[in-house]
């Protein structure tokens, strides 16, 4: 019997077992049956999600400019089944089964290729002042700059920690979290040990300081321990097994004003040296480097008005529970990331607004050109302004007009390097660098977003969006030498017919003389009622350009969705552009593909 047949048999058996258990539960629910089952059922919550893709051939995918990256397996399905059981108010337990058959979806991490397995499990004891978890848990310290273990199925990320976590409220004003664990790596665990301590202190509750204000502070420590096997033996330098990070933060709010600041330091660690990606990830073994992060937010808001400002500087902050995962070329989906460093730019739903989307470069790497490019981190800022023109005012009209203005600016850190013994085009392991603290001159990205929401009458409303952006493609997408200046306009109209029936028409245009030049796009969506809807959208690059993969190609999608209660089913057929696919500030590279997608989620 060959392997795939065997796999199929195992899968079949497991499914039968699941069905057998479930049928027990179903019968348990019927009246006059044992009440044991129904009381079990009340305490059990079940969530199921299934995502399948069937990759098809078409003229675009077969085009020589898009070499086929899809591979052998054209039909792939991933499934998540999560079971949580609460015995009483205190004890609960749960597990998550996952299956990736015959392998993970296109461009997702290969770590997960497995027919079926228990991915995470936990046992929890909870009282008012104490929470003890054994097994897998998700945790975030502060804003996640120092630690965040999380799950995003769409991005194919799950960095749950497996170990032990104790949360304890020392008083009403001071809470403490301690944890130890190893990060999830596919269906196993990473080699690095993670230790963490976090405390949150609420001063205003403690001393009744401010009648209308609030002052809180937080302190965290996270350590990662991982041994390192030296490849070159000539260097005498000691390579740290334990990398320590500390975070301090303060939040202050008074009436309509608020501000918070967080500072993180990370102790010395090796520098990634991506000289030979094919022969695996390598590190420079003669110098180590520290990292740090600074985040500051200040804002003022009152009824009908909101203003906020964000500043962030990241230097050498990429951090993984196994060093070998720190190279984004070999780990494009950010597996095993210890902390969370998202791009702080406005996130858009519209397709053309997601072509040039900023992604962060918070790590330290050196790219070897004639003049080496030292990428040490980023610095930048965002301003957000919200205003509601009141009903009855000149601009407000009968229903009011809502305006949002958002601007951001991001730059590479200014650095000076010193390399005592370089060779042609190749930097040495002895390279060191200095960075400037506040220097915004190396612009990588900037944008201005204006959004106006207007309701014309009871049935008809519109959203107008204008985006003007600059995108340094040569820095942000290695290997391509282009800087893009573009503007995007979107008009999104919705008409309500009543009783849940509605029609939405969205028109988009992207204008630029750079890169793949102009695009137009649109979406038409019709909902028959609040449960069932159909849609069609298309993005079309209508000009000749130097980017053959994006020239005169339609990227269309069509499908329907049906939602009832906590269940949703959607099917769509379409063509996906190759390149960066960004969701939630995290981008992953996708191969061009055409195909049919089926998503099912349900919970009970």
């Amino acid at each position, binding site marked *: 019997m060959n392997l795939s047949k065997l796999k199929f048999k195992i899968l079949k058996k497991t499914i039968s077992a699941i*069905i057998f258990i479930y049928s027990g539960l*179903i019968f348990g629910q019927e009246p006059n049956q044992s009440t044991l089952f129904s009381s079990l059922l009340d305490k059990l919550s079940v969530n*199921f999600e299934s995502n399948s893709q069937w990759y098809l051939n078409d003229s675009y995918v077969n085009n020589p400019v898009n070499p086929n990256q899809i591979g052998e397996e054209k039909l792939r399905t991933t499934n998540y089944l999560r079971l949580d059981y*609460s015995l009483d108010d205190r004890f609960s337990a749960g597990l998550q089964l996952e299956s990736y058959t015959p392998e993970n979806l296109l461009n997702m991490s290969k770590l997960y290729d497995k027919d079926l397995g228990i991915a995470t499990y936990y046992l929890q004891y909870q009282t008012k002042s104490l929470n003890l978890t054994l097994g897998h848990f998700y945790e975030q310290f502060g804003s*996640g700059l120092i630690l965040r273990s999380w799950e995003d199925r769409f991005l194919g990320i799950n960095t749950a920690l497996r170990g032990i976590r104790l949360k304890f409220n020392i008083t009403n004003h001071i809470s403490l979290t301690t944890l130890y664990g190893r990060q999830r790596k596919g269906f196993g665990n990473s080699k690095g040990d993670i230790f963490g301590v976090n405390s949150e202190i609420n001063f205003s509750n403690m001393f009744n300081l401010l009648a209308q204000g609030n002052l*809180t502070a937080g302190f965290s420590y996270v350590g990662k321990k991982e041994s390192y096997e030296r490849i070159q033996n000539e260097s005498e330098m000691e390579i740290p097994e334990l990398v320590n990070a500390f975070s301090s933060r303060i939040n202050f709010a008074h009436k309509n004003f608020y501000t918070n600041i967080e500072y993180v330091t990370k102790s010395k660690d090796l520098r990634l040296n991506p000289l030979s990606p094919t022969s695996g990830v390598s590190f420079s073994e003669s110098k180590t480097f520290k990292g740090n992060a600074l985040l500051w937010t200040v804002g003022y808001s009152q009824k009908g008005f909101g203003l906020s400002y964000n500043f962030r500087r990241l230097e050498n902050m990429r951090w993984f529970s196994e060093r070998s995962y720190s190279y984004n070329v070999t780990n494009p989906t950010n597996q095993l990331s210890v902390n969370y460093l998202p791009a702080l730019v406005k996130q858009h739903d519209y397709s053309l607004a997601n072509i040039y989307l900023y992604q962060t470069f918070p790590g330290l790497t050196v790219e070897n050109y004639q003049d080496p490019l030292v990428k040490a981190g980023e610095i930048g800022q965002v301003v957000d302004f919200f205003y509601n023109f009141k009903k009855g005012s000149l601009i407000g009209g009968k229903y009011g007009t809502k305006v949002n203005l958002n601007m951001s600016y991001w730059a590479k850190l200014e650095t000076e390097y010193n390399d005592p013994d370089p060779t042609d085009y190749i930097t040495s392991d002895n390279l060191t660098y200095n960075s400037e603290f506040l220097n915004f001159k190396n612009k990588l990205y900037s944008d201005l977003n204006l959004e106006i929401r207007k309701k014309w009458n009871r049935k008809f409303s519109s959203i107008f969006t204008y985006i003007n952006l600059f995108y340094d493609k040569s820095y942000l997408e290695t290997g391509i030498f282009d800087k893009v200046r573009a503007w995007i306009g979107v008009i999104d109209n919705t008409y309500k017919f009543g009783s849940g029936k509605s029609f939405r028409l969205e028109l988009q245009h992207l204008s630029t003389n750079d890169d793949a030049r102009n695009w137009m796009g649109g979406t038409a969506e019709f909902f028959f009622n609040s449960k069932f809807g159909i849609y069609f959208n298309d993005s079309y690059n209508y000009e000749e350009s130097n980017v053959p993969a994006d020239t005169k190609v339609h990227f269309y999608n069509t499908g329907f969705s049906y939602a009832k209660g906590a269940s949703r089913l959607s099917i769509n057929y379409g063509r996906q552009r190759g390149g960066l696919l960004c969701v939630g*500030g995290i981008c992953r590279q996708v191969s061009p593909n055409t195909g049919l997608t089926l998503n099912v989620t349900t*919970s009970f």
Partner: protein
Amino acid sequence: MKTKAIAFFILFYGLINAQEMLPNVELKTLSNSTISTQKIASEKELIIISLWATWCVPCKNELDAVSELYQDWIDETNVIYYAVSIDDSRTSNRIRPMVNGKDWEFEILLDENSDLKRAFGVSTVPYTVIVKNKKVVYKHMGYTPGYEEELYAELIKYSN
């Protein structure tokens, strides 16, 4: 294989109507203190919990639409609407100015690491539930224009 697939669907359908307890999850307030879902559910007989995010257009459409009707809903059913944001640190700084800028009167809570989202078992927002006496009596995924009328009808059904 076909019969098994059918069995699967029957089984899901059979379980969908089961009433369930509101999961107990710790959330944050805008002033950075913690509050549990158990606590907010025990303070009022009838509450709505709606998961949303600043980057989600349908979510904002839903909150804009409900916002216009919210005072009437309170008068008629004494409900409290909790808009629980799943924004993480990428966008969470936009919550406060957006809520005020849009003049929303909802109670705003934060689910920064998606603990409640995970406990509800949803992968997309918006997701809206009605909770009566700590039990989840109604769930709805997504927002379509005009859906607020359906939500109102459900609310009236459970307000007595």
